[in-house]
């Protein structure tokens, strides 16, 4: 009886010790949270695994659906279990303003010059670029359209066009079609006259537009012949091209946006997090990632490491960046609601 008791005790302490060791081991691992899916798989191969291998720092990967509330709850309760999080730009802007993310010390990180300017922000480091582009089915058009002005030209290119149902992107494209220069775009859009101008331009092709809601719709419509051209996410078009569809992209006037790495406020692994972000921003790791999924690297040097075919599809290839513009997220965080309401009011009239 006594012996048995002793044994139980030993077993218990042993168990506790192992559990404690496991916990301690976990505390050293860097928790990196992404959106998962195909992108998460590519990150695992391109970033997480080589990072652990080369630096000896374990990475605990995880995914989420962009639930901001979870990050807020962690920061507010002080129970921060996530270190590095992939966030989209509106969440980055909001979270940075609310103090949910650690401000990035670019002096310490020291890679600002390697990245495209849009990747360098107060609280986030860009990790990949995706773009909203003009896409068309080359088999159905008399000649290749070159700009949003051609998108508006219903005489030369008759047929229905697809645009995303919402004010974001749509207003920008309307102003570009109306001849506003890329660099003045958001200055014009920030004025009431600019907004009126965009809606007036949209009036011109309103009967020719079929509005899409999900990113999968534009390539499907293009292939089915429902629309002759459409705004679309470049990744979706690349996937359709891979299936052998003759879809083409006009990069001129495309709007690109980034996903960012952000460090959760109160993370005790800031130093490792910096190492990780630095590692994931190198040309070779970025190229590895972009070769697995058609999202553009933020490090332009990575383009040269890709095959010619892959490089041509990247939003950040030199030729594709010409005439392209980064979406002004702060503008949309501030004015989005007002403009969306006006858009919906306009669209249902």
């Amino acid at each position, binding site marked *: 009886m006594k012996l048995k008791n002793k044994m139980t005790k030993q077993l218990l302490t042993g168990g506790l010790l192992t559990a404690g060791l496991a916990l301690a081991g976990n505390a050293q691992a860097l928790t990196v949270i992404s959106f998962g899916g195909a992108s998460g798989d590519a990150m695992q191969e391109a970033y997480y695994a080589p990072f652990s291998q080369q630096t000896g720092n374990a990475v605990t990967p995880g995914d989420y659906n962009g639930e901001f509330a979870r990050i*807020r709850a962690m920061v507010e309760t002080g129970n921060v279990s996530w270190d590095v999080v992939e966030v989209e730009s509106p969440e980055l802007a*909001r979270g940075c303003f609310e103090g949910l993310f650690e401000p990035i010390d670019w002096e310490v990180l020291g890679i600002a010059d390697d990245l495209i300017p849009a990747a360098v922000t107060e609280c986030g480091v860009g990790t990949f670029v995706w773009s909203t582009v003009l896409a068309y089915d080359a088999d159905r058009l008399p000649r290749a359209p070159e700009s949003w002005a051609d998108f508006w030209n219903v005489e030369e290119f008759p047929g229905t066009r697809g645009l995303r149902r919402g004010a974001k992107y749509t207003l920008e494209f309307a102003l570009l079609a109306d001849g506003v220069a890329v660099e003045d775009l958001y200055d014009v859009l920030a004025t009431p006259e600019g907004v009126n101008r965009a809606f007036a331009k949209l009036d011109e092709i309103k009967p020719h537009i079929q509005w899409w809601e999900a990113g999968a719709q534009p390539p499907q419509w293009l292939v089915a012949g429902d629309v002759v051209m459409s705004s679309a996410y470049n990744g979706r078009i690349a996937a359709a091209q891979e299936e052998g569809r003759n879809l083409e992209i006009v990069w001129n006037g495309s709007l690109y946006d980034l996903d960012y790495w952000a460090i959760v406020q109160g993370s005790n692994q800031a130093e490792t997090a910096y190492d990780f972000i630095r590692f994931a921003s190198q040309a070779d790791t970025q190229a590895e990632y972009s070769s697995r999924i058609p999202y553009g690297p933020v490090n332009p040097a990575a383009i040269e490491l890709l095959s010619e075919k892959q490089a041509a599809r990247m939003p950040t290839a030199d030729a594709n960046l010409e005439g392209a513009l980064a979406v002004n997220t702060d503008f949309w965080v501030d004015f989005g609601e007002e403009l969306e309401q006006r858009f919906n009011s306009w669209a249902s009239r």
Partner: protein
Amino acid sequence: MTSITANHTAQDNQPIAGLKAQLRRAERMKKIKAMLLVAPLALFLMIAFVMPISSMLWRSIDNTEVGSVMPKTADAILHWDGQGIPDEAVFEAFANELRESRAGGGLGRIGRRLNYEDPTFRSLLTQTLRGLPATTEVTWTEELIGINARWNETSTWLAVQRTAPTVTDRYLLAALDLERAEQGQIAKVAPNQRLYVEVFKRTLVIAGGVTLICLFLGFPLAYLLATLPTSKSNLLLICVLLPFWTSLLVRTAAWIVLLQSGGLVNSGLMWTGIIDAPIQLVFNRIGVFFAMVHVLLPFMILPLYSVMKSVPSTYQRAAVSLGAHPFAAFWQVYVPQTLSGIAAGTILVFIMALGYYITPALVGGPSDQMVSYYVAYYTNTTNNWGMAAALGALLLIVTLLLYMVYHKLVNQKQLVRS
């Protein structure tokens, strides 16, 4: 005499009183048992139904963001008369509480709330926060105006003042395309911002239309199901139930495939020569009706079927044998007996249709989106829960009112018939 009688009755009553007490105790025990039995359900309803709905209703008027993060500022600015700019005390409280608001997400809450008053507030707050001096030995009025001249404008402080009271009607007003003008009177918003009254009307029209179509399609089918021999009706019933086992998204996507310009329906019609060019059947109101009727039809058929199953066919035959025209027999004898099924089916379909969101989002155009689409937009995309709650609350009120009217109508009809 009276005392004797009183005494007598009192003695007589004693056993009765004891019995009564026992009876009462037994009754009470029964009641307690019954209550304990329903307690889990009541608790569940409390937690899953009453509390979320009341918290949603509260959110539609909730204005405590600034008051909870900046209590002193809110308190001080409520005493300001709205002329010129507030006094130093307000400036000081504001500057101090703004600095402290970074902790615990407070800044996010006030930034979001103030942005509803004026979309440039967030950047103003960021800039002000960066410019705040480290010392406290300064005149805050000068300091803030030095950082940004907008702190010297009456309208800026009026906006802050509007966020200070505990409750606000701004969300409910906005959900009706109304707003408070500068002097506080209620006015319509600018014509190009008007949206929600139209959306509410549209929601009722679509839900009503879907209900009527479901009734017209479902009634004959339910009748057929109820009159066929069991073996055949069971097979048909499985066909009715089959869509239930398929995901809503799959069914919606299937309609897109069928109805799009190059889809089966259009190519079939073109092949038979009925039409020359494809007609627009999807991404407009037609598509919404198609998909919603398809999804909601079983909810009409099942209540109708269960009621019709219990209506004896002999009544109708009796009416015909007494000389009624078959249609009259059907209309005056059969249909009134199925009224409770019609009532249940229509209200079920109508109320479910009111909340539809993903189907119109996928198969509708911009002018087919219903209230819940905007509720989802404000909840998920912009985090403006006040606006989402206001739209939800108004939809709830409209639904309850309609339900009451409907209930009255149906009850009256049943009374008249019987």
